[in-house]
Structure formats: structure tokens, C-alpha cells
């Protein structure tokens, strides 16, 4: 744990500052003790990106005064606000009971507990709204517990004054907030109202009740908030319908379609909870909640009069941590939790796959050089000019076929005269053919095969350049996949993708030497090299994946 910087110590002469106890996007929190009173406190240092913005720091000062006047059992009390030497420091009550997020991911909450916590959260938010302050960063990590289990809304670090009708846009055209809980109007920089906090609170309830967020959280922050702006949230399934209706109204995209304020949201939530869990649900849950009279009345009065048996609702919903924990990186490596390695299977050895890959690759490279020489006659002609082939007496019609690696390049009928057949080839043939290709002259008397070898430089052709580019491209692409496997950034998909790339590499390994050596590439050698290449690539990918798993396992063991 880091000690506070000298500037923080200098700004708070009446406090004994302890170690850093928290860190987030909105600043660092230190433990401290107010020396004259001996009271333990938490000191939050506002982050530099906000502190250096003069308008923002002035707002903080103004809002700190408002927050200091907030006296509500579900809001973390602010004892002091210090602005000194560029430091902006909030002195708050120290809460030792953890956060809603930590408990959600460790033990989880039953739906009834979630509703009780939701009422406490909404009670605190409504009090803040009544004082003219919007929180705007409502999320499980900003809901803290005292040692006695009382929930308190904390971290008004980016809160706004309602009366100003302000937006939360910085001068750089950016907005502040937490992507998963950001309301659409906050994301767009539009004027804000208590409905923005209703959205955040409803998102928290959605998550605590279902174990997931209303929207996918992949693709980066921008993609996440765009979903909030443009898409409808996923329906809340596996949650009692009365609760789902209330929560889904809270995450409506249009602010006017949400609850007008936290109080009306709390009344409906309390009524739905009473309908689902029974009139005495809040007493049985045992979570300390301070409610307004209207909400307290609703909590003991089922919204529709009927009650769903509560025995089916006692299973805690727990955060899976999948969406919340970003991959941890050490250099280029992505670290995985040790338990994943300890609980999982032993990393399987990679050496057999490595050996197989080396063997297959060696055969693939050797194959083009070990093919038997063709014994068909060579036809060395310039394809930019008409091709003249001698034919036997009695031949009246002739057709010329050219193919490379089994694919037809050209087919043309010829003119037979004076014991010769003359063929005008398509212009493309001149540029496609490089080195040697198979050719055949089919006449009314039979078929004669040739090895067609244009005299031009074999690399001045699509076969020459194309096979070279294909070889380099597939090789680089495969190396790219292997790197992702070595860094454990991808898994089976990369292994599967390596197969077609290996096939392309194998074909290029056959065609390129064939072009240079002026040996016509055949279909089956090309297929054989492709299969060898695909097999070698897959074996290499599997070996790389296993080797990476072994390294990670070894690192976890140490």
C-alpha cells in the first residue's frame, strides 16, 4: 500500500494519514485519523484530471459545501473539504463493511436483500436530490457498508447541482462516468435530472437481481455507452415479474419514461417486493433501512394484493466477476487467476505436437523438390503471340487447354492448316502463366500433352508474384496467430484459423519453387502440400497454445 504524497500530508495537518485503502477512476482513498477527536476517517484525493480543470475544481468546492450539509443515514457523511496546493481532498466517514460490489461478488444477495439495499440506495439518492445534488456515478462500488451493515451512498466525486441544469460534459467534449451504469442523457452530454440517477440505480438493481448487466460490456467504453444510447436493454428474465417491471422502467432510454425521481422508484420497488416476498419481507431480511413514510407504507402493502411463495426466492444471486475483472497484463502476457490453473487440468505437453509440426513442415518443403520429372514434350512458346503446334495428318480440329495446379487457365480452339494448329490465347494467359504449366492439344485423332514453358522470366507472372505474396502473407498471418496464442489472447479460434492459412502456405510452397524450377505444378501435389501445410500449422498452433499454458502454470507455481 502506498503512503500519501507529501502534498496531501501537508494539506491535512490535523490528520494522521495511513495507507492507501482504495483506488478507482475518481481518485485514491487513504485511511486517516482525526487527531484531536481520535475519529477514524477516509480521505479521498480527487484525481488530477479533474483537479487541473479550474471549472471542475470550483464546482467540487461548491458541491462539497452542499454534501457537507447532507445529513442522511444512507449517505456517507462528509466531514471536511480541503483545497490546498492544488490538492482537493474530501474527508469522510470511514466505512469498514466493504462495498455492495465486494459482497455481491463474494457471497451474493438474495432478491429480497437486493430490494432492501435498493430502497436504502434510493433513500440516500432522494435525499441528495432534495438537497439539489445529482450523484451521477451510482454503481455497486460506490455503495458502501458500515461495520453494522448499513448501506451508504458514497463518492459524489462527479456529482452535479440540479438547479444549474448542468451537463456533465468537459471542455474536451467528453463525459465522465462509469460505462456500465451511464444514463443515455449523461453519455450524450444532455441536461441531467434525478432520472439519470434513477437509471444508475435501476442498473445496479438489474445487476444484483440477475447477475448480469442490461447490456453487453464488450468492445470498449465507447461501444458500451453507444449501446446505452441506441439499444434497448435485455429483458430481465428469471426475476419475479413485479420486480422486473419496476427495474425495467428504471432503465428506460427516455428519461421521461423512467421514474420521475428516486422516491417514486422506491415506492414501486417496495410495493413489488411486498407482492413477491410478503408484507413482512423487510423485517425478515434484517437489512437496516431508513425509509420515508410513503416508502415504508408501500413496503408492507403488496402492489396487487397477491403474494408469490417466497421459498423459491432465497437463492443468492452472485456476481460472476467475468465482466467486471479486466485481464491483468504483465508485459505482453495476459495473466490468469492461479485457481484457474490449479483447479483446471494439468497443462498437456506440447512437444509431440511440436515434433509433428516440424516433421510435416519438412515433408511439405521437400515435396516440390522430390516430384518425378515430367516426360511430356516441352512447348517453349511466347504466349503473347499465337501458339503454333505441329499436328498429324488427318487432323481437322484442335483445341488447346492450359491448366495450373488443376485449375484451367485458358481453353481455345485452333485453326488447323498445313500440318500445324495455330491457337490465339486470351491476353490474360500471358500474365498468369509463369515457369511451366500443363497443356494439352486435343484433336479429332487424340490428345497430346505438353509442358508449356514460356521463355519470359517466370517471376513476371501472376503465378510467380502471387505465390510469393501468398507465401509471405500466410506466413506472417500464421505468426500473428501464434503470437496471440503465446500471449494467451486467443484460443481455439486461432487454432482453427491456422488450418486454412496453413493450406494456403502449403500451396504457395509448392507453386513458388515450381515456377522458379519450371516444373508444372500438379493438382494432387498442390493438395498434398496444402494438407501438409494445414496439418503443420494446426500442430504448431496446438503446441504453442499448450506451451503458453505450461508457462502460465509454471509462473503461477512460483
Amino acid at each position: 500500500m502506498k503512503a500519501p504524497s507529501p502534498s496531501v500530508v501537508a494539506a491535512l495537518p490535523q490528520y494522521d494519514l495511513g495507507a492507501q485503502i482504495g483506488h478507482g477512476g475518481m481518485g485514491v482513498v487513504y485511511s486517516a485519523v482525526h487527531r484531536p477527536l481520535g475519529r477514524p476517517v477516509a480521505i479521498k484525493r480527487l484525481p488530477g484530471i479533474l483537479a487541473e480543470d479550474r471549472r471542475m475544481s470550483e464546482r467540487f468546492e461548491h458541491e462539497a459545501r452542499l454534501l457537507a450539509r447532507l445529513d442522511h443515514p444512507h449517505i456517507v457523511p462528509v466531514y471536511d473539504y480541503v483545497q490546498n496546493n492544488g490538492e482537493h481532498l474530501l474527508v469522510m466517514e470511514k466505512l469498514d463493511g466493504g462495498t455492495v460490489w465486494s459482497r455481491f461478488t463474494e457471497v451474493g444477495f438474495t432478491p429480497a436483500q437486493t430490494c432492501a439495499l435498493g430502497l436504502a440506495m434510493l433513500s440516500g439518492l432522494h435525499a441528495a436530490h432534495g438537497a439539489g445534488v445529482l450523484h451521477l456515478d451510482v454503481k455497486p462500488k460506490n455503495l458502501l457498508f458500515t461495520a453494522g451493515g448499513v448501506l451508504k451512498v458514497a463518492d459524489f466525486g462527479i456529482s452535479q447541482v440540479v438547479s444549474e441544469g448542468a451537463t456533465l460534459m468537459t471542455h474536451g467534449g467528453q463525459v465522465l462516468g462509469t460505462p456500465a451504469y451511464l444514463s443515455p442523457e449523461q453519455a450524450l452530454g444532455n441536461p441531467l435530472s434525478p432520472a439519470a440517477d434513477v437509471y444508475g440505480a435501476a442498473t445496479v438493481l438489474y445487476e444484483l437481481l440477475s447477475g448480469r448487466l442490461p447490456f453487453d460490456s464488450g468492445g470498449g467504453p465507447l461501444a458500451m455507452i453507444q449501446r446505452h444510447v441506441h439499444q434497448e436493454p435485455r429483458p430481465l428474465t428469471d426475476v419475479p415479474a413485479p420486480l422486473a417491471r419496476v427495474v425495467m422502467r428504471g432503465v428506460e432510454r427516455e428519461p421521461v419514461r423512467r421514474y420521475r425521481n428516486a422516491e417514486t422508484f422506491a415506492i414501486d420497488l417496495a410495493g413489488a417486493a411486498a407482492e413477491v416476498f410478503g408484507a413482512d419481507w423487510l423485517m425478515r431480511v434484517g437489512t437496516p433501512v431508513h425509509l420515508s413514510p410513503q416508502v415504508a407504507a408501500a413496503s408492507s402493502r403488496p402492489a396487487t394484493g397477491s403474494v408469490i411463495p417466497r421459498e423459491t426466492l432465497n437463492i443468492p444471486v452472485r456476481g460472476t466477476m467475468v465482466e467486471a475483472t479486466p485481464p491483468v497484463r504483465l508485459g505482453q502476457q495476459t495473466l490468469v487467476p492461479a485457481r484457474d490453473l490449479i483447479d483446471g487440468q494439468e497443462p498437456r505437453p506440447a512437444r509431440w505436437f511440436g515434433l509433428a509440426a516440424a516433421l510435416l513442415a519438412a515433408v511439405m518443403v521437400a515435396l516440390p523438390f522430390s516430384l518425378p520429372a515430367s516426360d511430356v514434350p516441352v512447348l517453349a512458346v511466347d504466349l503473347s503471340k499465337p501458339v503454333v503446334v505441329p499436328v498429324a495428318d488427318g487432323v481437322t480440329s484442335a483445341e488447346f487447354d492450359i491448366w495450373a495446379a488443376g485449375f484451367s487457365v485458358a481453353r481455345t480452339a485452333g485453326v488447323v492448316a498445313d500440318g500445324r494448329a495455330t491457337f490465339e490465347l486470351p491476353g490474360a494467359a500471358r500474365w498468369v502463366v509463369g515457369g511451366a504449366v500443363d497443356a494439352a492439344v486435343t484433336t479429332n485423332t487424340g490428345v497430346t500433352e505438353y509442358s508449356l514453358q514460356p521463355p519470359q522470366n517466370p517471376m513476371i507472372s501472376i503465378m510467380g508474384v502471387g505465390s510469393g505474396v501468398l507465401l509471405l502473407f500466410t506466413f506472417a498471418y500464421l505468426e500473428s496467430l501464434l503470437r496471440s496464442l503465446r500471449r494467451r489472447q486467443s484460443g481455439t479460434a486461432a487454432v482453427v484459423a491456422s488450418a486454412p492459412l496453413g493450406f494456403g502456405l502449403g500451396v504457395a510452397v509448392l507453386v513458388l519453387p515450381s515456377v522458379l524450377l519450371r516444373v508444372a505444378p500438379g493438382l494432387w501435389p498442390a493438395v498434398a502440400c496444402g494438407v501438409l501445410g494445414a496439418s503443420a500449422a494446426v500442430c504448431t498452433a496446438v503446441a504453442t497454445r499448450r506451451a503458453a499454458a505450461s508457462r502460465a502454470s509454471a509462473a503461477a507455481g512460483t
Partner: protein
Amino acid sequence: MSGVGLLLLCGMLLGVSPAVAAVGGVSINATVDGKPVTGDELLLDPSGSARISLTIHNGTDRVLHVKTVRLSGTALALTFFSYDTTLPFDVPGGESVTRGFVLDLDQLGSQATGLLPTELAVLDASRDVIAGVETTGDVRGSVWSVYGIFGLAVLLLTALAWAGALFALARRRLPANRWQRAMQFLPAGIGTGLVAVISLSVLGVMAPSPAAEIPFIVVAAAAALLLGYLTPHPAPAAPVDPEATQRLTRPLPPGGAA
């Protein structure tokens, strides 16, 4: 493949140059070492000299004052050799005049090699072209000529462009945007097309001309763009903690539909 062939065929057909040119009623016929200068290839051997004979036909009613005869070769809009010979003579209106001279091509070997579009032109005192005849010069020069080195330089730059793009692919350093990845391969494709054009010229297969260059360069560039487009995303998106408060870029201007 047929589309590629069609483009190449267009380039070949359109690449044929006129052998005799007429400017404002003035035409020119020429022979080099007794061989008529036509659309066929004109052998230019740097080891010797060329005897050039010109016949100017003046179809106008005014006298033409010829001052200079120019033999020049261009490729990719760049002039790689140019020989100016001062040969003053007049061509009366409605008449034809023939003149001959010997041109020493000693330095040609160090300036160009291969097939190049070549022009033999007569110029007036203000160096404006009176008339000219175009052909394809078959220069038997050195690979280390200016044109040869130009081709090697383009080849080197193209190899570097490919190496850069492929190393970036192998090292997963390509941009995250697919179109930007495609654009990173584009210079390599254009370079490949240029190398093909110059190689065909140097190897004496085909002289460069705009109609022949464009299909080669466009096809090679398109192929490289396609390869770049097919490259994989370099790395997974930066890890995002949906629980962390962040400074975020607005997806739309204020007032956008919420």
C-alpha cells in the same frame, strides 16, 4: 481471373503508339540506320552510333524553321534519355525536305535499358515541337543505368513496404480499424504494380505506357488492399472495467436522440 485478364488486355491494346505524327499539317517520316521508324521496336545500341534520316512534309503555306532534332525516351512520365542535335534547315510551305545526321549513342547505355516509349521530334528556335514520330525504343543498356537503378529503387521500396506491412501483421502491430489495415498494405500493392511495369520494360517484354501501367497498378493495389482488409484484428480491445469511473468520449453531439 478473367477480369484481370481483360484489364491487362486493355492495357496491351491501348498501349500501341502511333508511328507517325502530324502536327498542324506537318508530318514527319524517319529512318534509323535505314530502318523506317514505325510502331515497331527501334533498336538503339549504345555501343555504336545511329544514322538518322528525317523527311519533313510541310502541308502548310508558311515556311517551317527547324533548328533541333530530339531523340528522347520516357517512362512513368519521367524522361530517362534525351539527345538534342542542332540541325538548322527550312521547309518551305507545301514542300518536303530530307536531312540526315549521325547520332552518337555512347552514353545511352548508362541512361536507360529495355523497352521505353521513344520519340523523334523536330523543334523550332523556341524549342516548340513542330512534328514528331513515336516508337518503342529497344535500348540495349546496362541494368545499372539511371532507369535500371530507378527500377531497383522502386523494387527496394516495394520490398520495404511489403516487409513493413507483413512484419506489422506478424507482430500484431496493425491498426485496429480494418480499413486502416487495408490502407497500410496499399503502398506495397502500388509498388508491386510499378515494379511489374518497370520489370516488363527492363526485360524487354513490354514498354510502359499509361494505358498499360494503370491496369497493373490498379490490380496490384486492389489485391494488396484485399489482403490488408483480410488481416486479423491486432489485439483484443483494451481491457475495460465496467465498474470503473472513466472519462469517456461522447458518442453523439449534445442534444442527440437519447
